[in-house]
């Protein structure tokens, strides 16, 4: 009788628990709290948090190569670059490029915000990260989860958990991170600028846009192909209006399915031994830095464009050039309406916002080409 008990305890995970595991449980509980109670990106943080929790239960071997359940999800989904492009397919099927087509100048704002990403790349190297790690950290400033995961899994897979969590966490915190920078870099007068109504965009234009941009971007930067091709096909599904079933499948069912595997696998990469590294704190710091600098460079780009434009744009919309769709656009709208309650910037900010998605992918592809 006693022997059976002893056997049960020795074979249980309890005796193999380490202090690191306990700390990771705390991390998991914190993320669970943020997801459930605060609703910060719950669709991702919840599976991530649960992944962290289960992978830090000893002897479960869920991430054991060739054996563990979650390892298979991770290996086939993320190591083989299947899931991030599938998320982009769904994203494409949801995005409306209309405001961007109506005001193509906002593409430049999407580029402007990426400058912050390269500044962070520089900063990360000064912090002692190697080039590939620095690129994976810098891409957090693009405020785009799938792209961050895509690039990190190729350049610095050991950092995957930290970069993914900080990208998603800061995206949820956009309404807190961005406004101070927006107010610092713009005058009250600039924030009050009301932009002229967007021109209507015909269905034909909306159908042509994903085709033209897919060809242009992939011809110029072939390394962007996996993400851009899926994004633009999803958008073509939506705008063509003839394959509603595929549009719905991409943006709902498929997207939800892969989100589960994405979150769980990312969480499961965070074992105590990989995550409890003082460098992770630097990554969280640099990720925040990346968000702030990207916001600033987007705003400055908008102000720079205003030097040449007859029809002034409201420089706040430059801050939406970090992707974070649609959180950044909402944030611009809020700050704009605080300055002038009749200022409705939401749709104007959606242009740079979706341009930011394209810009981040292009930036990631160029980093991948140079460092991969």
């Amino acid at each position, binding site marked *: 009788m006693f022997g059976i008990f002893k056997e049960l305890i020795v074979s249980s995970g309890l005796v193999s628990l380490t202090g690191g595991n306990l700390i990771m449980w705390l991390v998991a509980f914190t993320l669970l709290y943020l997801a459930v109670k605060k609703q910060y990106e719950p669709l991702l943080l919840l599976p991530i948090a649960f992944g962290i929790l289960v992978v830090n239960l000893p002897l479960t071997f869920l991430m054991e190569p060739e054996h563990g359940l979650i390892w298979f999800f991770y290996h086939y989904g993320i190591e083989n670059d299947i899931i991030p492009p599938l998320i982009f397919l769904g994203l494409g099927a949801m995005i409306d490029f209309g405001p*961007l*087509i109506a005001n*193509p*100048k906002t*593409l*430049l704002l*999407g*580029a402007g915000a*990426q*400058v912050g*990403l*390269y500044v962070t*790349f*520089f900063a990360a*190297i000064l912090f*002692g*990260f*190697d*080039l590939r790690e620095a*690129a994976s950290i810098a891409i957090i400033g693009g405020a785009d989860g799938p792209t961050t995961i895509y690039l990190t899994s190729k350049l610095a897979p050991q950092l995957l958990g930290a970069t993914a969590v900080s990208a998603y966490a800061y995206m949820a915190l956009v309404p807190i991170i961005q406004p101070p920078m927006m107010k610092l870099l713009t005058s009250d007068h600039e924030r009050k600028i009301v932009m002229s109504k967007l021109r209507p965009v*015909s*269905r*034909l*234009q909306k159908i*042509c*846009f994903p085709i*033209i*941009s897919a060809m*242009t*971007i992939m011809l*110029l*930067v072939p390394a962007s192909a996996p993400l851009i091709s899926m994004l633009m096909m999803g958008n073509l599904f939506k705008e063509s209006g003839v394959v509603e079933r595929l549009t719905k499948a991409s943006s709902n069912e498929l997207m939800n399915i892969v989100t589960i595997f994405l979150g769980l696998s990312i969480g499961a990469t965070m074992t105590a031994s990989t995550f409890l590294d003082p460098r992770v704190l630097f990554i969280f710091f640099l990720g925040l830095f990346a968000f702030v600098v990207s916001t600033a460079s987007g705003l400055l780009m908008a102000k720079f464009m205003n030097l040449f434009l007859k029809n002034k744009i409201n420089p706040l919309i430059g801050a939406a050039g970090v992707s974070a769709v649609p959180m950044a656009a909402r944030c611009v709208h809020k700050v704009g309406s605080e300055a002038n309650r009749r200022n409705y910037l939401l749709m104007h900010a959606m242009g740079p916002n979706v*341009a930011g998605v*394209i*810009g981040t992918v*292009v*930036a990631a592809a*160029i*980093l991948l080409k*140079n*460092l991969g």
Partner: protein
Amino acid sequence: MHSMTDWSKVLEVFGSGIVGVYLVMILLQLLTQLSTRIIDMVENGKTSGDAAPQPPGTDVKGKV
């Protein structure tokens, strides 16, 4: 950790990245503007051309 950072490589990545992103986005802007202009011309041409005979006019609206 600081052992040997290849600063020329860093500068290359930094420079080519910024230039590359701007290049792609500017080109995309020009092409979007161009396509908008062409589509405007095609659509306006069609509707004004079809203004006289009625049935094709409604047909165009249904298509575009």
